[in-house]
């Protein structure tokens, strides 16, 4: 197990390094001069030259990369060219927002998705399956922006149960925090819940028709034990894979949701950085998101090996 973990860890670090190169080069391949984006309306040649010098934009790209990696290794992610604030601070402020949003959405998706998936599989051919399928289809098809605006109109303006926007840290005021986070979590989690529901249903249908379930039933185990202990546990490998992949989407894909609900998270930070060609912020954000993806993949692999020991043995051989 340790050897397996070490191998995976090493692979992850190499991936991260490669990602940093791609991100660095990719951002600089974007059209649009960051000095111009920064200078905006009033751009004199002197001001542009000073901006380029201040942020080392005139240097060779290899020099710029080496400087970036050197600083990043010491934990210095640079200074935002737009606001002049340290990028690490911006990330430190944005990360909890996005993580909370992702966690709440995930919770919603897991509870609703797995629950509905199990019901749909167990009650195959019954109205419950049909209802679950229709709801999942709607969840998958509704555009995030539309759902967000409709929820705000319904539950923040017409019936003001929740807030339309903004973020209050959970530690400062838990009730206000949830009042602001519920709608975004629904918006972000609904699509994932639908995906999870469909995966759970399909995997459960497979498991329920498998020999070991027939055996368990024949041995006279309770329905609850057969569904929960045998069929569901075996179905979870697929579901965990999907969740792992989707969690990455939750962290990086919160862009639209964060825009609608004005949540100062990663998505909003990324969008602002792209439009202002804020290289320092953009590369730090993309790199952190990539690291999160890689970490999640690693965790998914570890969880696999716990759920299904055959995977671990295969990897260690």
């Amino acid at each position, binding site marked *: 197990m340790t050897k397996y973990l070490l191998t995976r860890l090493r692979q992850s670090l190499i991936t991260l390094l490669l990602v940093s190169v791609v991100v660095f080069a990719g951002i600089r391949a974007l059209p649009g001069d960051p000095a*111009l984006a920064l200078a*905006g309306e009033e751009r004199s040649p002197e001001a542009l030259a000073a901006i380029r010098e201040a942020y080392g934009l005139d240097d060779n790209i290899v020099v710029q990369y080496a400087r970036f990696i050197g600083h990043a290794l010491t934990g210095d992610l640079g200074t935002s060219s737009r606001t*002049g604030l340290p990028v690490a601070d911006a990330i430190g*402020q944005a990360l909890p927002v996005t993580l909370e949003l992702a966690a709440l959405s995930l919770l919603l998706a897991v509870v609703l998705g797995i629950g509905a998936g199990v019901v749909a599989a167990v009650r195959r051919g019954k109205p419950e399956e049909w209802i679950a399928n229709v709801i999942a289809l709607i969840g998958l098809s509704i555009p995030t922006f539309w759902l967000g*605006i409709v929820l705000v109109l319904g539950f923040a303006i017409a019936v003001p149960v929740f807030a*339309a926007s903004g973020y209050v840290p959970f530690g400062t005021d838990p009730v206000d925090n949830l009042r602001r986070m519920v709608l975004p979590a629904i918006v972000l989690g609904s699509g994932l819940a639908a995906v999870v529901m469909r995966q759970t249903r399909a995997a459960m249908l497979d498991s329920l028709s498998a020999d070991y379930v027939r055996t368990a039933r024949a041995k006279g185990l309770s329905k609850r034990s057969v569904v929960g202990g045998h069929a569901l546990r075996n179905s979870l490998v697929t579901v965990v894979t999907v969740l792992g992949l989707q969690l990455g989407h939750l962290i990086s894909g919160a862009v639209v949701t964060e*825009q*609608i609900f*004005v949540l100062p998270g990663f998505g909003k930070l990324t969008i602002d950085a792209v439009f*202002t060609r804020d290289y320092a912020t953009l590369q730090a954000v993309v790199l952190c998101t990539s690291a999160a993806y890689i970490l999640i993949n690693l965790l998914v692999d570890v969880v696999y090996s716990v759920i299904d020991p055959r995977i671990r043995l295969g990897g260690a051989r």
Partner: protein
Amino acid sequence: MAVALVSLTSGCASLQSSATEVGGVRKTDDRSVRDGGTLTVALNSDPDKLDPTLAQTLVGRTVFAGMCEKLYDIDEDGVVVPQLAAALPVTSADGRTVTLKVRHGLKFSDGTRLGAAAVVTSLLRHRDLPGSARGTELAPVTSIEATGPDTVRMRLKQPYVPLTGVLADRAGMVMSPAALKKYGKNFTNHPSCVGPFRFVERVGGDRIVLKKDPNYYDADKVHLDGVVYKPIPDGNVRLANLRSGDLQVGDQMGPVDVQSALTEPKLQLFNSPSLGYQGIGLNVGNVKGLGQPPGKLDTPIARDVRVREAFELAIDRDTLNKVVFQGMYEPACGPISPQSAIAPGTKPEDCPKRDVAKARKLLKEAGVKTPLKIELKTSTTPEQGRVGQVLQAMVKEAGFDLSLRPTEYATMLSETDAGNYDVFTSGWSGRLDPDGNVSNFLKTAGAMNAYGLGDPGIDRLIAEGRTVADPARRTEIYDELTERVQDAHTMIYLYRQKNYVVATKDVAGIRVYGDGLVRVTTAGYTR
């Protein structure tokens, strides 16, 4: 059906009742307010650096209006009035020495005193700091010195009339020398000026928090405990938050959102005409990039002024305004707003009218093969997209085949500055002094002359406008300049935006002037 009808008619009714507000101008609300409370103001983007020397954005100016006063300000009518200065500046007979008095006994938010020395420190920093966005504006100033505790003397290379207007903007903001010394480059994270509110914190992309400053000389007039500025780029989202009460003020609202806000009894509208302009720039000689002398460009629009004139004659400014902006902006045909207190420009009704027959005739005379293919670069906003589509339809009738290329803002700047375009949408938020709206754009090789325009006559008028102090003569100069620019058909001015600010009705005392800034000094919640 009945429900739909009722809601439709009630919507129309409230639209009509507020329609007078849309047509007219409303800059202030003088209802009495109570003390206390925090105001949340939505901006349409996140401000850049909160350092008056380095700041570039219009939204940043709105935040400064809450915490950094200037030597001069403008009043409701756009007239320059003293703010931190005790009186208007005194200019010597030769126009090359300007003396100004600073108000006595004022304190910065960090508690230190404002005096002539602080003004000198700030002005020198604005002029000399590498990367300063104020450098060009203060370039004609050769020396700045304190000649007494409250007296500052500036010497100029040549007479420079726009100086007072410049000092009524960020170049006139005075920063605490103690804070500058303490924080240096990091002043942007700890700005300290004289103002009704002082800086508390900034969370990038989320909020800028200010609270009432007890050191402010007019603290009695300040009713709010604090102000929070929140960047919310999407107009729909801003409106939803105004409706839900999470926000009290929405800055720079688009016409569509304003129309929609007017159906809401809880909301009120402020508006003032802006000093800026929006239009399209035609590439007539930008072959080497910005700041370089114009070169020869072999396109029909660059070669022949008749083609450009035909293009302009094919455009109907009124229809554009009606179709894209519900008639809520103002048609324009010159760089200087008719609202300008100094040398007012052309009125909308005096703009040239559409004449398709003449446009066709001109194209024929110029000998171009129609339809003439031209590409228009626009930014990616829905509004600019609609402007492009309306223009496309209009000029088609005259024989132009206009294709649209929506281009993301930073990319568009790079490409148009480099001269890589036919026509692009070009706009400016406007400055108080007419010089700020013409010199950088229209002067040969000017810092923002992306059109490649090079006209010695225009250059001469720009230079004269900067040096002649007599207001009547200045008006003549800028009228002549406008005429020349119109004849060149290189920058085609189309409309002027209006500053639309939507606020909840329980807020009074905010002020929206022609410079587009929301002033919150006297704002508060109604009793």
